[in-house]
């Protein structure tokens, strides 16, 4: 791995152990103070915002921008934001967008080429990425960020564009006290409680009849920020309330990934089930776009009308398109079933070979945002069941 100066490192934070962490209990005004403190430190704070009937990351000017009293209803092919307990702040979970778009924009300029006397020159654009603070990162999405770090920074090549944006991102995680119907992070080992890799982590609890937040520091640089917030000491009861809330969310999860799915899929590359799901899949690419770890891209070349300037852009791509596997003479994956198989086996099986981890963090987005409600956990289970029938 490349060096991660100024960046939270999940393993290091986890290794530091709970003993060295600092915790406190804060109120709503503590959250406001936290956002202001991050801004004073030069961070642009991005956090949950309600837009077009969904919770998406948006810019937070003040703590007052934080949405209150919302919850969500999610299931296969279904997402709806609903009014919840007006006193609760984090009772919704993940929406259609993830932090991926902030670290790895859906479209970015790779270079501009200009015709000159001797051929052309190539200029790399300067990336003026603001210092970002991600506010309200759910444990599954924290795991997804760690996954992208490995993809773009962990191999023999480093994507400098990703690196520039990722460097120094301050992460305020929120542990989940409520799961949606689509969540299966517990079975993926990524949530509903963050295991590290954050600067600060919040858990919404009810203490003395009021909504409050247990806040824990997970990095050195978070300590002074935490120390300056209006707060009360965290008692054993508060810590227990947070544990209970998270445990309840884990228990409420109705979906789970089948165990040992990596080996299961690897021995079922020729299962007839792929044809079955291939018939239902519309190849619309929604699942890959909403997935917080899907990283595939393509490039586009354009020239100005007079031909004096050309540019090369990179944009998100999807393995569900026919062009994706095109080589002279035709695409490799012509069948819908082959493309679904590529996506699912990559997420759950071959990702382990490539990056030493799962490509799926169990966020459930692909289930909710699939127009025909295809459910990755059910497809895996169907393949497991088909083995039993053999």
């Amino acid at each position, binding site marked *: 791995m490349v060096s991660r100066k100024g960046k939270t490192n999940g393993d290091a934070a986890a290794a530091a152990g709970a003993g060295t962490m600092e915790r406190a209990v804060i109120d709503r005004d503590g959250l406001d103070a936290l956002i202001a403190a991050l801004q004073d430190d030069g961070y642009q704070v991005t956090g949950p915002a309600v837009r077009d009937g969904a919770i998406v990351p948006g810019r937070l000017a003040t703590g007052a921008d934080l949405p209150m009293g919302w919850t969500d209803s999610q299931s296969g092919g279904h997402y709806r934001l609903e009014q919840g307990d007006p006193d609760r702040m984090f009772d919704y979970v993940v929406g259609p967008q993830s932090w991926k778009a902030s670290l790895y924009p859906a479209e970015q300029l*790779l*270079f501009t*080429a200009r*015709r000159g006397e*001797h*051929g*052309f*020159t*190539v200029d*790399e654009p300067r990336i003026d990425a603001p210092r970002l603070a991600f506010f309200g990162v759910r444990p599954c999405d924290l795991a997804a960020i760690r996954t992208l770090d490995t*993809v*773009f920074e962990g*191999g*023999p*090549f*480093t*994507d*400098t*564009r990703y690196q520039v944006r990722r460097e120094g991102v301050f992460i305020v995680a929120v542990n989940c006290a409520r799961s949606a119907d689509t969540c299966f992070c517990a079975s993926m080992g990524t949530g509903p409680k963050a295991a590290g890799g954050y600067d600060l982590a919040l858990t919404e609890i009810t203490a003395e009849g009021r909504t409050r937040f247990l806040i824990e520091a997970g990095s050195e640089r978070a300590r002074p920020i935490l120390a300056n917030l209006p707060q009360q000491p965290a008692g054993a009861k508060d810590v227990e309330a947070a544990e209970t809330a998270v445990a309840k969310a884990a228990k409420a999860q109705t979906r789970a990934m089948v165990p040992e799915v990596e080996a299961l899929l690897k021995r079922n*590359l*020729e299962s007839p089930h792929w044809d079955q799901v291939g018939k239902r899949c519309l190849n619309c690419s929604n699942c890959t776009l909403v997935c917080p770890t899907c*990283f*595939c*891209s*393509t*490039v586009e*070349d*354009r*020239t100005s009308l007079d*031909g004096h300037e*050309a540019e*090369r852009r*990179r944009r998100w*791509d999807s*393995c569900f398109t026919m062009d*994706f*596997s*095109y*080589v*002279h003479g035709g695409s*490799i*994956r*012509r*069948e819908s079933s*082959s493309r679904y198989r*590529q996506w699912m*086996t*990559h997420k759950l*099986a*071959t990702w382990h*070979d*490539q990056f030493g981890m799962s490509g799926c963090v169990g966020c459930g987005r692909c289930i909710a945002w699939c127009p025909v409600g295809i459910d990755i956990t059910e497809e895996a289970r169907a393949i497991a069941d088909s083995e039993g029938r053999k």
Partner: protein
Amino acid sequence: MDTSLAADPGPEIPPARWSGVDPMMPRPFTVKRVRKELADTFTLELEPADGGGPIRFQPGQFNMLYAYGVGEVPISISSDPDDPSVVAHTTRFVGSVTEALVHTRIGSLIGVRGPFGTHWPVEIAQGEDVAFIAGGIGLAPLRPAIYRVLSERQKYGNVVIFYGARTPEDLLFRKELQSWRSRFDINVHVTVDRATGRWNGRVGFVTQLIRGGGFDRHSSVAFICGPELMMRYSIQKLQEHGLGNDRIFISMERNMKCAVGFCGHCQLGSQFVCKDGPVYRFDNIEDYFSIWEL
């Protein structure tokens, strides 16, 4: 008899030489020479135009070639790996980017990123017989390996080249094939699928040549490059001949948009063909080879 190779050569990734430069940024290279090979195939000889050093590569590696404003495609290096003064690419024009590339003139610039990927590990075949099996344009990516072996000819056993093309007009590097054939220390067998004009040579598929042998089934290493179907049948023939899958090397072709493991397009099962390949020892990907549309 133990037919497996002593040391597992494995797919190797040569150390990337980026010296801080972004791997997605092309370097400008000047076209020094254009050689028309066939009606649709040209060899471009390139030289750095940015004052930087030459590209040092291993046989079988490729570069991403950028045609101004049109696009970028993976093209193998076809020149001598031991002559760093020139880097050559032999390109068949099949679509928009390759068309723009073959239409470049002497003195024009093209963008180059590379070299990328694994190489033909000819060094592990020292002391053994070597078979090069090429179909069509597949001779170009193999040529650097042939140069390497011929430059140290005494270190190898029998050396044989099996080459097939569609028609006599599609035979690449004809003059060179003839000069190799005239040597006493290398066997060159050429065939065409379909004879045209004054062709007196063999007619038939390259796989039919392999039956003729000319290499020891127990101590040979085969390097194959060509269309996937041709490689499939060649492997079958070699297996019938008694060659182990760990002695067969092939080069895979997949769509590539980045060559550094970022874009995902080149995946073949767990493999990123751009960085884990394109050259594979066959036993390492044989399981994937038989799976439909993987």
